[in-house]
């Protein structure tokens, strides 16, 4: 047997995961990539004394399963491996991470560029600030360095452009400034609450997405099945988070093209959405709303009415503003054919989430690996085909409409008005187990993986934010664009720095 298959959030026993010789492991997993309905959700290494066990989790998007396999290599046997990346570029981040953290060597990896300069790295990296960027010797080209600290209030990361006049020929992005050592903290912090708070802090703008991935994983490892009330609240919270951030992003896109009215109106439309989160759980960014095994803030009658009222007020203003915006040639001129990220590129680098869908690539965990109540909602992903900034603007608008519809549906047909539940989560996790949890945050596919030891303690925790895949997409999308269009390209991707750096 080459693989074991599991569904989203299904626990598999560690001994049941096949261990293949490395060459077979590589052939099998890279072979799967030939199928368009297959992509890699996570590939990571688990150091065990002088051995390293590699796990590869491939999503089968047609069957809704996750195909898991593993291999083992020696830690100090100086073996130089053939890389997955040479066979399919989508693996590049995973192998860079393993090379950087554990010193795994590859013979044919195209670019072992440091990923995040981790504190527990294998030690060959220079300091992040001394990173040698790709450089071209030319008297006609010039370089522009931006960051790590940017002009606005955003997170740090360095962008190095090589330009010909105003035109970007090449962009190299170096991240890692936000590295906080989260994966190790998941093991060091012992209480469930501490780990939940960590999950909410992976990317604070995706608190619901990451906390839902964590809660789903934890409940599966505890063999706990959440009730429909918990699922309903989590689904509504996930979609409300999507609405809030997408609205804020539309405002930011308007800001970057100096369209003041759109910037103000979308900006202020976000306020009541996040204030509804505060009404619901006491936090505008929805921290605190998702808790494994329980539902601390049930949706009572008042909260349901507040949600309906929110949308009744939001919709007319939103559609009026959006309608005006898309009728303005001066707006469209800045958005159309700017920052084009092609379907082919998206496929090649393994793009996920909204960015992939705006480039015609079907990637949506709500559709392929449904969790929470997405099965019941018969979710149909929204796809755009041009892959330009305008596609990424349109998809946000359409996803907002879709999310509002879902929440309205759930409120209409939702069972049981919440009473809150304090169900008993078993204290121990299943021992010697492996579990993958996938959610579709507003950015895209969030993947959390955990391995437990013989005593049922966490032995490994791996987090993957969708940004890990998509940052390279931004670098490709800006090629041949004017450097003055970089801000809207960046904003239309709106990727996470901290989610990437962990």
């Amino acid at each position: 047997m080459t693989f074991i298959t599991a569904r989203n959030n299904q626990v598999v026993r560690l001994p049941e995961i096949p261990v293949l010789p490395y060459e077979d492991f590589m052939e099998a997993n890279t072979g799967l990539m030939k199928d368009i309905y297959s992509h890699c959700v996570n590939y990571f290494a688990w150091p065990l004394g002088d051995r390293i066990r590699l796990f590869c989790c491939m999503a089968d998007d047609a069957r809704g399963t996750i195909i898991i396999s593993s291999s083992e290599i020696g830690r100090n046997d100086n073996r130089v491996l053939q890389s997955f990346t040479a066979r399919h570029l989508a693996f590049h981040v995973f192998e860079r991470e393993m090379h950087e953290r554990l010193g795994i060597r590859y013979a044919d990896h195209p670019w072992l560029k440091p990923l995040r300069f981790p504190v527990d790295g294998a030690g060959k990296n220079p300091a992040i600030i001394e990173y040698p960027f790709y450089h071209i010797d030319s008297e006609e080209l010039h370089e522009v360095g931006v960051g790590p600290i940017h002009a606005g209030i955003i997170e740090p990361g360095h962008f190095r452009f090589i330009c010909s006049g105003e035109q970007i020929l090449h962009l190299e992005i170096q991240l890692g400034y936000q590295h906080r050592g989260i994966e190790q903290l998941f093991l060091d912090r012992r209480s469930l609450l501490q780990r939940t708070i960590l999950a909410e802090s992976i990317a604070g703008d995706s608190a619901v997405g990451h906390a839902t991935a964590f809660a789903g994983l934890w409940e599966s490892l505890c063999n706990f099945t959440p009730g429909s009330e918990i699922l309903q609240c989590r689904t509504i919270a996930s979609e409300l988070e999507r609405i809030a951030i997408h609205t804020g992003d539309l405002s930011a896109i308007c800001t970057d093209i100096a369209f003041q009215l759109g910037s103000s109106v979308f900006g202020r439309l976000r306020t009541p959405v996040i204030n509804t989160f505060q009404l619901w759980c006491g936090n505008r960014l929805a921290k605190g709303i998702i808790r494994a095994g329980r539902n601390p803030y049930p949706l009572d009658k008042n909260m349901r009415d507040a949600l309906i009222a929110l949308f009744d007020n939001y919709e007319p203003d939103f559609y009026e503003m959006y309608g005006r915006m898309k009728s303005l040639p001066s707006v469209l001129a800045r958005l159309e054919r700017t920052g084009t990220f092609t379907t082919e590129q998206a496929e090649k680098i393994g793009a996920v989430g909204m960015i992939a869908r705006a480039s015609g690539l079907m990637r949506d965990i709500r559709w392929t690996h449904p969790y929470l109540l997405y099965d019941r909602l018969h979710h149909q992903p929204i796809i755009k085909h041009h892959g330009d900034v305008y596609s990424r603007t349109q998809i946000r608008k359409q996803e907002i409409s879709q999310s509002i519809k879902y929440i309205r549906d759930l409120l209409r047909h939702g069972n049981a008005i919440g009473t809150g539940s304090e169900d008993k989560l078993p204290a121990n996790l299943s021992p010697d187990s492996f579990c993958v949890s996938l959610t579709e945050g507003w950015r895209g596919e969030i993947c959390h993986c955990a391995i437990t030891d013989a005593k049922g303690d966490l032995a490994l925790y791996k987090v993957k934010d969708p940004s890990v895949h998509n940052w390279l997409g931004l670098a490709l999308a800006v090629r041949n664009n004017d450097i003055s269009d970089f801000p809207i390209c960046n904003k239309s991707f709106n990727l996470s720095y901290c989610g990437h750096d962990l």
Partner: protein
Amino acid sequence: MLSEIKILLHQGKQYIPDVTQAEVPGIFRGRPVISTAGADVRRLVEICPTGAIDADPVRIDMGKCVFCGECSLAFPQKIRFTKDYKICAAVREDLIISEGKDEPLTLKPEQIRKEIRSYFGHSLKLRQVSAGGDNSCEWELNACGNVNFDMGRFGIEFVASPRHADGIVITGPISANMAEPLQICYDAIPFPKIIILAGTDAISGGIFTGSPALDRSFPGKYHIDLYVPGNPVHPLTFINGVLDLIRTR
């Protein structure tokens, strides 16, 4: 043009007329009040994910608190989070709320460096640096300048360059990889300059306290002018804190 005017009319007035008196909607976890009722203090201390609760007397350090509210869910008789969002302090110890204490937090004039009010009373330009921030405080600091909160009306603004700034606002637990860029940015700000720590992560490290990936030497080296607790900070907390710092009422 007509459609723009129509949109403007439909928006109505969006700004909060008085940000010092506005009430926040729904539930909000602001300044905690700890009653003198008896409780299983050992368990209470254990619950807290960041060690913000201490015993004898029971007290909560808002500089460590991530405002998850789990202590008040477990001990509703003992701990209650009020909607009071004015929770900034000029001195670190003032963030510690003790059992039986239910008074608003204030910045005392003697806690504030003299030059701050005379230099920055009517205009304050700030440079923000995210050093491991999770983008929630960053969103909220951006929101301070939106049409609802409109911090610009007080002459308080975020600027693009440290050379244009009067001070620095730090978010995040300060990752080691950001320690040097943060220092360079601070050095580029002309004197006199202020330092504001925004959010629990920045004040104490929050849930990341003790992670080897952090380098918290910066806040230990300098005088901190304002602590703004929150996870993330609420725009009203930030605006009121800064106003209290720079203005005499």
